[in-house]
């Protein structure tokens, strides 16, 4: 009979009227985030970095720029290159995480934040100073050692370089 289906549809919408809304009030309420979330602020540990620039080579867009000079001795295991420039242009980054996957020394991590909006494209470039000074809450993406420890970057403690290794 014409109308039964329409009536059923109306009942569905009516029941949804009294259901709890699905919306998350974003700035006030935190969006539940997975620890693997591939966020914007990269976490970089200079102590672990040898300056091999694997990350720069593996980046599909070539947005990582690394300039080094030999002679730095800042890595516990031995000599390495000292980093002069480590620019990540996150204005063009697509957060695929291949740089993190490529890093053989667990020095580079994806970040966990997503609120780094800027008005100018130039301000979107993460420089080496910013990487050095920022609080590092690395995402557990491609870092199973952090996952084993049940580390949650969102709201967790910042990690130092000794804690993040394999």
């Amino acid at each position, binding site marked *: 009979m014409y109308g039964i289906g329409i009536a059923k549809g109306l009942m569905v919408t009516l029941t*949804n009227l009294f259901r709890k809304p699905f919306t998350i009030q974003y700035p006030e309420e935190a969006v539940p985030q*997975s620890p693997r979330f591939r966020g914007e602020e990269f976490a970089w540990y200079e102590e672990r970095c040898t300056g091999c620039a694997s990350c720069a080579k593996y980046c599909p867009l070539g947005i990582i720029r690394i300039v080094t000079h030999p002679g730095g001795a800042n890595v516990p295991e031995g000599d390495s290159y000292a980093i002069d420039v480590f620019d990540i242009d996150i204005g063009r980054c697509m957060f*695929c995480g291949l740089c993190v996957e490529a890093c053989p020394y667990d020095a580079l991590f994806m970040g966990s934040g997503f609120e780094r909006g800027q008005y100018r494209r130039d301000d979107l470039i993460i420089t080496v100073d910013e990487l050095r000074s920022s609080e590092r809450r690395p995402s557990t993406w491609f870092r199973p050692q952090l996952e084993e420890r049940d580390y949650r970057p969102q709201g967790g403690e910042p990690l130092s370089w000794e804690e993040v290794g394999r």
Partner: protein
Amino acid sequence: MTLRTEPVTINLGPQHPSTHGVFRMRITFDGEVILDVEPVFGYLHRGSEKLAEERTYAQVVTLTDRLDYVSSMSNNLAYVLAVEKLAGIQPPERAMYLRVIAAELQRISSHLVATGFFLNDLGALATPLMYCFREREKILDLFEMLCGARITLSYMRVGGVFQDAPTEFWPAIRDFLSFMPEYVDEYEKMLTGNEILLSRTKDVGILAGETAINCSASGPVLRSAGVNWDLRKADPYDVYDRLEFDVPVGTVGDNYDRYLLRIAEIRQSLRIIEQCVDQIPEGPVRERIPNLVRPPVGDAYAHVESPKGELGFYLVSDGSIAPYRCKIRSPSLINLTVLRDILIGWKLADMIVTFGSIDINMGEVDR
């Protein structure tokens, strides 16, 4: 006295609410009836195939995310299968199961988007769309748990998947499997018997089986025309040959069948995921292969049943670290071949609905 009338030509698009992206159709109308359709493509052409020639095999995975941006997993899977075929790599079993789970979740999410927008094209004030997106959000949460991203996933790698699923993923997916059927029932209760939807979609935009085959249509468009052709059955990849599922096939090939088919496929996908979650073995998830894969000289074609249809990658290797040629057989573009056959003679309102029921994605059409 007879009135002199003449046909009206309308440029439907590139900016139009229901062309699902930037797509243009030059349509000639006689009153409201369509006399001729000429699709115009290319507004979203980014040269993915050319870009792929300048990237290593691993880096191309990120490009495939952006083809059909509502079903990245299927694109990942198709590409990765092609490279594996080219280089002769066999992924571990656990990885294959994880891929199937991911691809089927993606199918559900893509079909939800398709159904929602289909109803939006029918003019349902976004209510079914919101319901569909509500559940899609749950799937995106699962994806975020799995691989840290919601849309551009880049989950699969040559020789497996990038990492095993986290421990919290398994209870979450069981939970999803338990509540999702109820929501699908709710859509069906709201929509399937709705007389307005029936009168708008039933026997509208009928596509005959022979035409569908001749037009190389694939996926729901082909199956709704009554052709039993599903690559998961016809040419099983990964572990589909160990899973039990049915292929829903339409009877008439009209818009209503395409809608019913998507709902039925969501149910079948849930069945597949359930089996995968039960069967998945322990073990490694990634074959140990060098980061820079150098497949032998040759070519390979691999295809998957993506939510939109047969998505194929034809890769040619010259032995270097980058593909020599990467051709993408995109289902959305080729499904549009049927456009003239099923639109001409119908009214403007039917045209929008029929176009919505084909379910194209401009990222994939223009690549």
